[in-house]
């Protein structure tokens, strides 16, 4: 057991909270069938981060996060616009926004790295995430925003449920779909924006997608899934940060994602609700029941893998 510095403890706390918030909002994205939207938006945040830096000429997290939020929202707007007013489908629209915004981000990044102070700004660490680059101020910002996100999801618990499950019915009860959609988009962008410093724009999406998908293998209930996703996300954030801190200059994002992948594989195989093991046993039972039912000779049946 290593002894952690006070700063590392704070960073650990903030990546854990980030993982929890990402797990919860990731569930929303999953139910809205927008898992890859988070990937597109986190890539789209890059030019904003760099522009936020360039405006002040010095590293100021609020400015950079503000820029990130703006460009991610712009990306979301573009996807929506392309999808609704041309024959180009959503997947292509996301691919376009993702790659073009990221290309612009790289252009700006190359330019910014030549500005005085640009090389030391740690801008590069936004690509793969570098929690070691976070100072106390960054940690407070992150903690504040994650808390806000968690509170918003908890306060409007039943409204979210209604909105995600049956927005039309919700509309009938006076729940405005537009407002909820906007709020959802804001939450998603907030989580992405605060996450990119630790997890990086390229892998941030994984922290949103994986905890929710893993949670599905354990429970069918709404609350259960959200709770478990928060747990998985928090664990991924904390463990990933710890592991990456044990190496010299190792990026944080990939280790957070690997932790989340390990949790996913465990859930996939051993999960009590739809895990492979359980499915296998059920399948056997079904097969056995079927053979009992029929007196048909086995060689005549056409067998197909499920």
């Amino acid at each position, binding site marked *: 057991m290593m002894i952690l510095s006070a700063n590392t403890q704070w960073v650990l706390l903030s990546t854990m909270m980030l993982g929890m918030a990402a797990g919860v909002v990731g569930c929303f994205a999953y139910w809205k069938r927008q898992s890859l939207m988070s990937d597109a938006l986190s890539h789209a945040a890059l030019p904003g981060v760099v522009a936020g830096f360039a405006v002040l000429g010095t590293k100021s997290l609020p400015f950079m996060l503000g820029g990130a939020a703006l460009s991610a929202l712009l990306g979301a707007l573009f996807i929506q616009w392309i999808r609704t007013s041309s024959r180009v489908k959503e997947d292509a629209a996301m691919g376009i926004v993702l790659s073009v915004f990221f*290309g612009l981000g790289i*252009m700006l990044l190359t330019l910014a790295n030549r500005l005085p102070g640009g090389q030391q700004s740690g801008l590069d660490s936004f690509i793969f995430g570098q929690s070691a680059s976070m100072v106390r101020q960054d940690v407070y910002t992150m903690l504040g925003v994650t808390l806000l996100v968690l509170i918003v999801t908890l306060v409007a618990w039943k409204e979210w449920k209604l909105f995600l499950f049956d927005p039309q019915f919700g509309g009938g009860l006076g729940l405005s779909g537009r407002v909820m959609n906007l709020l959802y988009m804001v939450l998603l962008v907030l989580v992405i924006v605060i996450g990119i410093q630790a997890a990086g724009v390229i892998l941030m999406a994984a922290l949103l997608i994986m905890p929710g998908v893993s949670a599905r293998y354990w429970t069918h209930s709404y609350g259960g899934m959200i709770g478990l996703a928060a747990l998985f996300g928090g664990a991924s954030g904390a463990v990933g940060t710890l592991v990456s801190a044990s190496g010299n200059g190792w990026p944080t994002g990939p280790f957070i994602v690997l932790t989340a992948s390990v949790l996913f594989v465990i859930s996939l195989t051993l999960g009590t609700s739809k895990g492979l093991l359980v499915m296998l046993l059920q399948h056997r039972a079904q097969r056995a029941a079927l053979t009992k039912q029929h007196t048909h000779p086995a060689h005549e049946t056409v067998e197909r893998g499920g």
Partner: protein
Amino acid sequence: MSYTGWILLTASLVGLSCGFIGVLLILRRMAMMADAISHTVLLGIVVAYLVTRELSGVHMLIGAVTAGLLTSLFVQWLHARGVQQEASIGVVFTSLFAIGVVLIATKVGNAHLDIQHTLMGEITYIPWELTELPWIGAVPEAVVLLSGVLVVVVGVILAFYKEWKITSFDPALAASLGIPVVLMHYVFMSLVSITTVAAFDAVGAIMVVAMLITPAAAAYLWTDRLLVMMGLSGVFGVIAAFMGYYIAVWLDTSISGSMAFSTGIIFMISFLFSPRHGLASRLVRPADQI
């Protein structure tokens, strides 16, 4: 050929291969699959490097195609087990990519293979890495590799043109006519993988995604004929390569980033002004009245 000439030729070859493949990608609604594969080939390259300890074209191609096919298999497999298609893509590619990055960061990080390079490419070095060809003389290795890939891509698309068309448009009918839809899917994924990996070294992962999806989507707004769409898409890719290069030189910035951005400009122009399916056409006449 001049230094600039080689760079433009390399990028144009990427633009052509990606442009042709991209048309099938977006018609099969697999744009995000291309994004996924462009990330996971990194793992294939790293593993090939760890096994052979050298970065040769052949090993990289084998590693990348394996990684691409595995990505596609895993996604299919998870989807068949009830995970949404989108989410399965997200789970698979981020995991495999993370493994690749971690391996680079912890095991193989060196001058030949670093993370920055794989994302953004190093097209500026391409003209220096020459190889001798009979008759022609010294040619950059990347140009040889990319020309080979272009020939394969064009060959396979044209040879099975009607099969690509029908399996993209109506897979159920294709299957009922006896066309091996699943096999075609994996052949296609292999094509995407080799295109990606060949382009990867030159221009990096993100630029590959831009070149695969954006010119094809732009071409989709100009025409209703598949062959024309492919031709246009290739042309757009080449235009983006030239445009990107000169913008990058002008601003003195990343060439691959600037090429990716240029594909976006071409798309935006098409999106706004294409007389057939652009926004302008809607202003002139209502959508359903032709």
